C-alpha cells in the first residue's frame, strides 16, 4: 500500500514538473506562435536567481518568489529588442532565439563561472510506511497546482486574460477597441518568461545549477507543448499528464532510459494521430 502511494506521488511529481516547465513555452509558443529556443535559458536564469539570492543570505523561498519577476523582466527586454521584429517569421525567430540561447549561456558562464552549483533541497523527508519521501516533491506538486489554477483564473476570468486571448485571435479587433496589441504581445511574452523563471527556480534545488542546464529540459518541453497543441492550459495539462505518466510509469517499472523511450514513442504516436496536438480534439468538436 505504501509502495502504491509513494509511486503515485512520484508519477504526480513527474507530471507536475513537466506542466510547470512547459507552461511558459505553452504561453509563448502555444498562444503567440513564437518558437522560443531560448526557453531553456529562461529556466536557467530562474535557477540562477535563486542561487544568487541564497548566496546573499535570502531564504530559498524568497529567491523562488523573486525569480518570475526577474526573468519576466528579462523576457520583456528581449521581446522589445529582438522578438517583436520577428512576429510572423518563424524561421527567423528560431534563428534569433537560438542565438539568444547561446549568448545567454555564454554570458552566464562569463559572469557566474562554468562550475555546477548546488542549492540544498529544503524541508526534510517524511516516512510513508517503509519508504522515505522528500517533502519538497509534495511542495513542487502544490506549486504547480497553484500556478495552473492562477493561470486558469487569469486567462479565463480576468479582463487581462480576455484581452490576451482576443489579441492572439484577432489583433485588429483588439486594436480597434483601444488596446495596443504590441503591449499585449510584450506582456504575454513576459509572462511566458516569468513562468519559465518560476519553473527553473523550483527545479534548482533538485538538480544542479549550471549554465548549460537549459539543455536538459528544452527538448522535453517542446515535445510537451507540441503534443499539447495550442490550448494553453488544457492542452499542456493533458499532454504533460499523458507523457509524464508514460515516462514515470515505465521508469518505475524498469529504468529511466526506457521511461524516456516510452515518452518519446508516445509523443511520436500522438503527433502522428493528432497533428494539431491534443488540442486538436477539442477544436474540431467545436
Amino acid at each position, binding site marked *: 500500500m505504501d509502495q502504491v502511494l509513494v509511486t503515485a506521488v512520484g508519477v504526480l511529481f513527474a507530471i507536475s514538473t513537466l506542466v510547470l516547465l512547459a507552461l511558459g513555452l505553452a504561453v509563448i509558443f502555444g498562444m503567440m506562435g513564437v518558437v522560443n529556443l531560448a526557453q531553456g535559458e529562461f529556466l536557467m536564469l530562474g535557477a540562477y536567481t535563486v542561487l544568487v539570492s541564497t548566496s546573499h543570505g535570502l531564504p530559498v523561498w524568497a529567491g523562488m518568489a523573486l525569480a518570475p519577476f526577474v526573468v519576466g523582466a528579462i523576457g520583456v527586454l528581449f521581446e522589445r529588442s529582438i522578438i517583436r521584429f520577428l512576429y510572423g517569421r518563424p524561421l527567423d525567430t528560431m534563428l534569433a532565439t537560438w542565438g539568444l540561447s547561446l549568448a545567454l549561456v555564454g554570458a552566464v558562464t562569463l559572469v557566474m563561472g562554468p*562550475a555546477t552549483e*548546488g542549492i540544498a533541497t529544503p524541508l526534510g523527508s517524511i516516512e510513508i510506511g517503509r519508504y522515505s519521501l522528500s517533502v519538497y516533491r509534495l511542495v513542487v506538486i502544490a506549486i504547480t497546482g497553484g500556478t495552473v489554477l492562477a493561470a486558469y483564473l487569469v486567462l479565463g476570468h480576468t479582463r487581462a486574460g480576455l484581452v490576451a486571448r482576443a489579441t492572439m485571435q484577432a489583433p485588429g479587433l483588439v486594436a480597434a477597441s483601444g488596446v495596443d496589441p504590441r503591449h499585449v504581445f510584450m506582456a504575454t511574452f513576459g509572462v511566458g518568461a516569468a513562468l519559465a523563471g518560476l519553473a527553473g527556480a523550483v527545479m534548482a534545488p533538485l538538480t544542479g545549477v549550471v549554465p548549460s542546464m537549459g539543455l*536538459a529540459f528544452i527538448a522535453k518541453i517542446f515535445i510537451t507543448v507540441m503534443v499539447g497543441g495550442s490550448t494553453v492550459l488544457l492542452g499542456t495539462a493533458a499532454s504533460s499528464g499523458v507523457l509524464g505518466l508514460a515516462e514515470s510509469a515505465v521508469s*518505475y517499472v524498469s529504468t*529511466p532510459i526506457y521511461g524516456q523511450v516510452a515518452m518519446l514513442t508516445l509523443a511520436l504516436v500522438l503527433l502522428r494521430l493528432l497533428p494539431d496536438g491534443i488540442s486538436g480534439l477539442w477544436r474540431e468538436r467545436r
Partner: protein
Amino acid sequence: MLTRRQALRRFGAASLGLALADLPPGRGQAAEEIVVGTLLDSTGPINIYGLPMVDATRFAIDDINASGGVLGRKLRVVQFDTQSNNQLYTQYATQLILESKVAVLMGGITSASREAVRPVVDKYGALYFYNEQYEGGVCDKNVFCTGVTPAQQIGNLVPWSVQEYGPKFYTLAADYNYGHISADWVKLYLQKSKGELLAQEFIPLDVVDFGSVIQRIESARPSVVFSLLVGGNHIAFYRQFAAAGLNKKIPVVSPTFGLGNEQIVLKPEEAEGIVVIYPYFQELDNEANRKWVAAWHQRFGAGYPYITDSASTVWNGWHLWAMAADKAGSLEPAKVIAALESGLTFDAPEGRIALDPQSHHVVHTVHMARVNDKKGFTIFKTVENVEPSDTKQVCDLIAKPGQHTQYTPKF
C-alpha cells in the same frame, strides 16, 4: 546588383581575412618551443572534472618550464575546450596532431572521450596520455593511462564494503562504456568477496530525476549502494537521496564521487559519510603534498575549492612525459615510448609512483576516505603500491607491442 568591381573587392577582402587568420604564430618563436596539446572539458556537465584538470595542466607546464623545460626547450601548450562533446574530441585531436604537430597529446576525461581520441592517435602514430581514473584495460602502444584503475579502487573498495556494511550491493552506474565495464568489475570482485548483487542500474548522463531509482533502492534494501555515477547531472542523485533521508539509512560507496568536487556542490549534510578511494587527496599528510598544495594555493588562490585526484593525475602525466623525453633525448614518439617503458618512478604529491613498463599504467598507493563536514575528506585506511592488475594481467606491451585495444572483464 553586384558589379564586378564590388564582387572583386568583397572576395578579395574575404580571402585576405581568411589568409591572415590562418598565419602560423611567429616562426622564430615556434622553432625554440615544443608544442604540446591538451583536450579537456571546461564547459558542459563534464566540466566538474575538467576545470581542476585544466588548472593542473597550466600548473604542470609552468613547473616544467621553470625547471628548464624539456630538452632545454620551453613547452607551449595548445588547449582546446571540448565542451563535454565527444565529436569535438575527435576533431580537435586530429587538428592538434596534424596542424599543431604536438609532441604529445594529453587529455580526455570520460572513457567515451578517450575512445574518441584513441583511434585518431593510433592512425597517426602520436603519443597520448590519458590522465584520469577509468575502468582499466586499455592496451595500446601509443597510449599511457596514468589514472587509478578498478584493481586499485574497486578491488579494495568492494571487499572492505562487504566486511563493513554487508554483502548486498545495489550498483548505480552511468550509462556508457565506463559505467558498464566498471559495473562488471564490481560483479567480479563481489563474487570473490562472496557478496550478492541485488541489482544494477544504468543511468544516462543527462538524467536528473532519480525518484524511481531511489524508490527501487528502498524496495531492494541493500547493505550498501555502489555508485558509479558520473557528471554534473548525476549529482542530483545524492541530493535527492539525502532529501529522502536515505543517506542516514543506507551507506554509499563510490570510486567516482569527489572527482568532480561533488562534495563541494552538495551541502555537508547531503554528502557526509560517503566512502571513496583514491591515490590522491588534498588532505594527504606528506612533505611533497604539503609543498604542492601550498604552491597550488599560491598560484590559484587560497580559496580554491579542492584539488582533485584528477588534477594530481594530470600533474603526474606531464612530469612523467617530460622525464621520459629528457631521458630519450628526443621527442620522437617511438623513442619517448621506449623511455617511458624503462621503469620510471616519480615523486608525486601522492607519494612515489611507478610507471609499469608492460601495461603502460601506474602503480598507485590508494587511500580510503569519508566525506567530512568541511567539504573535504578524512582518510581512514591506506593500501600501499597496488598494481594495476586489471590491465597488467592481460596486457604486455613489451612482449606484444602491436596492440591497440581495450580489454574488458569476461565472466
